[in-house]
């Protein structure tokens, strides 16, 4: 093991130290914003530097096995041995770079964005804590440690969604996210139980080594394990049916949406499947389920994104949709493609969110200056902002071209690769042609709704209000700086994994080979001819162009009215605006019956009626009564005491001598 890899604990410890320091500051000296910024950004920057050194060491080692750094035994319990151990390999290296790198940029952006907030220190404490848990998640060398990180990021997500908890809607959104994730986590736990029962271990290296011996390929156990793991992923990564928390999660500060709800945490499910790709490779049915859910989610969320007015909601549904692509990728067994889209998406979606944050920041200040209470996130209150915010507008256009899949930009390559791999799998089963078609339609919608967002926000006449226009300004450099860096990455990120028809192709694919090789062993080789590949690339270009052109042609920003004056929507538009009424359906079918059951039956009848009155209070009354009888015997007379003493002694001696 290269000595530098031994230092991996430092990557994790730095943000934790930042959390401790900032947490303390938030309690004792919340106004020390300079110190808070230095600690919050500094620890993540240092973690990024250490990560670079570790990745360099890893690249130099050309290792085919992961390096496992065991810090200490955590749960030595019978056959179960769980160590606090970190695993450094090619997959965790990619995630480390994304988490610390993009995380660092977002921390810097937050310095500007949150500057005026009273909870500045608390914000950075949470943000550092999040980075800590996310690093534990991607570094964990066994399921329980990964799960600790998994739950920890969920906690931070909850804390940050409800960061402005004095508004009830925000606190509710946090609760919703937390509760929906619990459903998925139950699946994750069940999967872990199955894995331990079958393999007798929870450490990745042991489980993956033993899996081929204990599981039959496509057998019921391995399929159940994979599906339960995927249930966990649908919660964390907002896939059908557990996706509805993510749009609500936009209640948190916008940099949080960029970091947690776009670039890192929500991709944890994709990472989990990549990490356990051996298990999924042995369960082809589960893989097909993952791919199907991914493709359908991609299309479903894209349709909702078409009609949202809240700029962050558009991006939220876009994230759900893009996560669908990643699951489509890892579901068809193209682990590297899924991870590739994860990385490029981290760049351009973080950029889009931060750009949106910059816009919201500007509008918020404008409305604040004129004391008007309008929605600073509603696109109907924007328009023409490119005149005042040229930097933000330009970088967001770059990100839009990337996500829409315009050739040359990063998103073009990653999305095309996912779709191409799906298409290639069509030889095995016709289902995958269908999934490819669904993905292609979703790509068309993606190009359309992103162009719509840009048109309504930055082009056409301004609808903010005459008085406010003078107060709209470009963000300060701490905010635009990270945007520019992310824009550069969004543009050139595609070189990480160029298609095979181009020179220098498939770099990420080769890099991840040590991780994916074991799973690839179980999968039939899929290959596309160069002709098909060129055709698919061409088609992708046409789709992107079509989506952008259609939006440009059919949408007229000039006809929009500010949110306060806008007419109500009808028909399909209303259906999309209300998100297909999924929240309402869930509420009627699941939430209300459950609450009724808990309230009327379980609480009032079972708990209060039976358990409390008979079981708890009844037994307490009996016990107390017996105690009172016992204290009557305590007369205070020595004679009584001697009597009991002698009777006891006689009984004891009788018992002792009768064996």
């Amino acid at each position: 093991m290269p000595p530098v890899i031994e230092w991996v604990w430092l990557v994790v410890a730095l943000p934790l130290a930042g959390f401790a320091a900032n947490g303390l500051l938030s309690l004792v000296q919340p106004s020390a914003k300079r110190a808070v910024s230095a600690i919050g950004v500094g620890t993540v920057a240092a973690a990024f530097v250490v990560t670079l050194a570790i990745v360099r060491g890893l690249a130099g080692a050309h290792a085919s096995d992961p390096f496992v750094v065991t810090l200490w035994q955590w749960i030595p319990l019978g056959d179960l041995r769980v160590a606090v151990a970190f695993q450094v390999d090619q997959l965790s290296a990619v995630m480390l770079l994304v988490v610390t790198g993009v995380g660092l940029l977002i921390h810097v952006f937050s310095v500007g964005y949150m500057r005026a907030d009273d909870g500045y220190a608390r914000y950075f404490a949470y943000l550092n804590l999040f980075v800590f848990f996310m690093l534990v998640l991607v570094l964990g060398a066994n399921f329980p440690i990964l799960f600790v990180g998994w739950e920890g990021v969920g906690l931070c997500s909850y804390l940050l969604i409800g960061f402005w908890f004095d508004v009830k809607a925000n606190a509710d959104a946090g609760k919703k996210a937390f509760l929906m994730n619990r459903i998925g986590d139950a699946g994750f736990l069940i999967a872990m139980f199955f894995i331990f029962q079958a393999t007798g271990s929870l450490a990745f290296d042991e489980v993956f080594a033993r899996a081929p011996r204990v599981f039959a390929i496509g057998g019921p156990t391995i399929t159940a394990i994979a599906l339960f793991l995927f249930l966990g992923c649908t919660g964390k990564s907002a896939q059908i049916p557990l996706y509805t928390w993510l749009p609500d999660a936009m209640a948190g500060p916008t940099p949080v949406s960029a970091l947690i709800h776009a670039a890192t945490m929500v991709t944890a499910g994709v990472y989990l499947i990549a990490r356990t790709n051996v298990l999924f490779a042995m369960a082809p049915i589960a893989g097909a389920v993952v791919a199907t859910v991914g493709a359908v989610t991609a299309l479903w969320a894209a349709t909702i994104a078409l009609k949202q007015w809240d700029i962050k909601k558009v991006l939220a549904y876009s994230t759900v949709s893009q996560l669908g692509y990643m699951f489509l990728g890892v579901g068809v067994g193209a682990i590297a493609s899924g991870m590739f889209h994860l990385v490029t998406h981290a760049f351009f979606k973080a950029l889009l969110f931060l750009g949106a944050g910059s816009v919201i920041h500007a509008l918020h200040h404008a409305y604040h200056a004129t004391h008007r209470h309008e929605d600073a996130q509603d696109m109907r209150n924007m328009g023409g902002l490119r005149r005042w915010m040229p930097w933000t507008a330009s970088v967001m256009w770059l990100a839009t071209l990337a996500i829409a899949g315009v050739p040359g930009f990063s998103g073009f390559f990653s999305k095309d690769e996912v779709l191409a791999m799906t298409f290639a799998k069509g030889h095995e089963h016709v289902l995958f042609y269908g999934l490819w078609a669904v993905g292609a339609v979703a790509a068309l919608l993606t190009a359309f709704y992103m162009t719509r967002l840009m048109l309504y926000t930055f082009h056409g006449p301004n609808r903010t209000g005459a008085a406010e226009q003078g107060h709209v300004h470009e963000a300060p450099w701490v905010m635009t700086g990270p945007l520019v860096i992310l824009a550069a990455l969004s543009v050139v990120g595609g070189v990480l994994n160029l298609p095979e028809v181009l020179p220098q192709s498939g770099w990420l694919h080769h890099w991840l080979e040590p991780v994916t090789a074991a799973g690839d062993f179980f999968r039939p080789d899929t290959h596309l001819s160069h002709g098909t590949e060129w055709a698919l690339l061409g088609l992708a270009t046409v789709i992107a162009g079509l989506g952008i052109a259609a939006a440009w042609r059919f949408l007229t920003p000039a006809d929009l009215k500010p949110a306060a004056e806008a007419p109500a929507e009808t028909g399909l538009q209303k259906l999309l605006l209300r998100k297909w009424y999924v929240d309402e359906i869930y509420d009627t079918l699941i939430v209300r019956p459950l609450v009724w059951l808990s309230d009327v039956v379980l609480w009032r009848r079972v708990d209060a009626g039976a358990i409390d009155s008979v079981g708890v209070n009844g037994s307490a009354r009996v016990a107390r009564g017996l105690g009172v009888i016992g204290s009557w015997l305590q007369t205070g007379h020595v004679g009584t005491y001697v009597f009991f003493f002698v009777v006891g002694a006689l009984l004891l001696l009788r018992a002792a001598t009768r064996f």
Partner: protein
Amino acid sequence: MTPMLIDLSAPAGITLALLPEIVLTGWALILLLVIGWRHGDPDHHRWAGGFTLVGLLVALGTVLWLWRAGATPDGLPLMIALDGFRWATAAIFLIGGIAAVLLAQGYLGRERILVPEFYALVLFAMVGMLLMGGAADLIVVFLGLELMSLSVYVLAGIKRRSPQSAEAALKYFLLGAFASGFLLYGIALLYGATGTTNLQAIALQLADSEIVGRPMLALGAGMLLVGFGFKVSAVPFHMWAPDVYDGAPTPVTAYMAAAVKAAGFAALVRVALTALGDATAAWQTTVWWLAVLTMVVGNLVALAQRRLKRMLAYSSIAHAGYLLVAVAAATTQGGSAFLFYAFAYTLMTVGAFAVLAAVGRDGESDLLIDDFNGLAERRPWLSFALAVFMLSLLGFPGTAGFIGKWLILAAAVDAGQATLAVMVVGASVLSAGYYLPVIMAMYMKPSERAEVAEGARLARGGRLVVAAAAVVLLLFGVWPNRALDVARDSGRQLAVPGVIIGLPR
């Protein structure tokens, strides 16, 4: 580390082996001599307390020194053992004694009990306890027990002007003398059955199954159990305990509930495991019943108490039941569990009585649990400490009480006594019914008697006891590893080594 071999047949060797006891006895004699002339004014009293404290600390130092040096007998230990169990129990008693003296210093002054002989009696009792924990012979067990008991009889009645205190002392003395008779008779019968009073020699005799089957042996073991059962306040020999604990001055109660009880158990564990380890049939079932009865009765009656001091008295009976479970396991694992639990129990009991002494007045026996209502608002730290003690007594995770109870459960289950383990858990559930209301009163009820909180006073010594006990309980609740290792090693040494040449007859 090479062990320090001590030849117990040479005067120098026996002196070294008895160093802690000699230090304490000498200290007590000097103290008696000095206070013969100087006992009139509070300054003298303070001096006596300080002097005693130093003596206990020096004794603790010698214990730790001998322990670390690995003192080992050169040959068979005839009268006094040199093993980890002796040092561990000695350390526990001394810690209990130090805490009691620290408490007493402020308390006796406040309650106008200016009797410096108090400290000499504490020292003599301590010598008795150390002998009980270190006895290698039944005669030494008896000597230690009587030395301790006689001192404690007087301590219980040290508040001479209080009729309650005098009544408590008299009851204790009468019943104690009765119990000592049983104990002595038991020793005589054991001697009759085996021809020796040496613990290890008895064990070797019992390798012969003919002797194990003798009714005389069983009768002797039964008599011993009655005697020890009284000292540790096991039901049905417990009835003195609530009255005596209630009537005695609170530092004495703490001393009795913690150190005296632990000493009784130490001797019981030694006799049961070392001498009668091969004759478990003679005592395991009876201990099993004693444990069950003690847990059930102690907890049930504690539930009905409204006065804190009396509730703690019954709680101490209930804890004797848990410790009896460790004995009933009849394994060295049980011995280890006893050591850890006794340590934790000493701290939490002394701590709880210290808080009681701080809040109450005039013997504290009229202090109701309701008087603690709202204490947390005015005395947050004191309340926090009492909450820690209550949770630890309850066996709540995160406290040393939990680890101790867990060890006892593990010992019982590993010894095949699963029913007993279930009983421990059930009894602990009952105990929540009287420990938690104290916490509830302090934190969740409005204050009714402000003067209780206002009047709560802890002298510097008492504050030290409360703070140290709470911190150590929490520390060992989350990081018990080191203490567990010590307890495990010390408990193992109770087993008799396989072959010993040259049996004395």
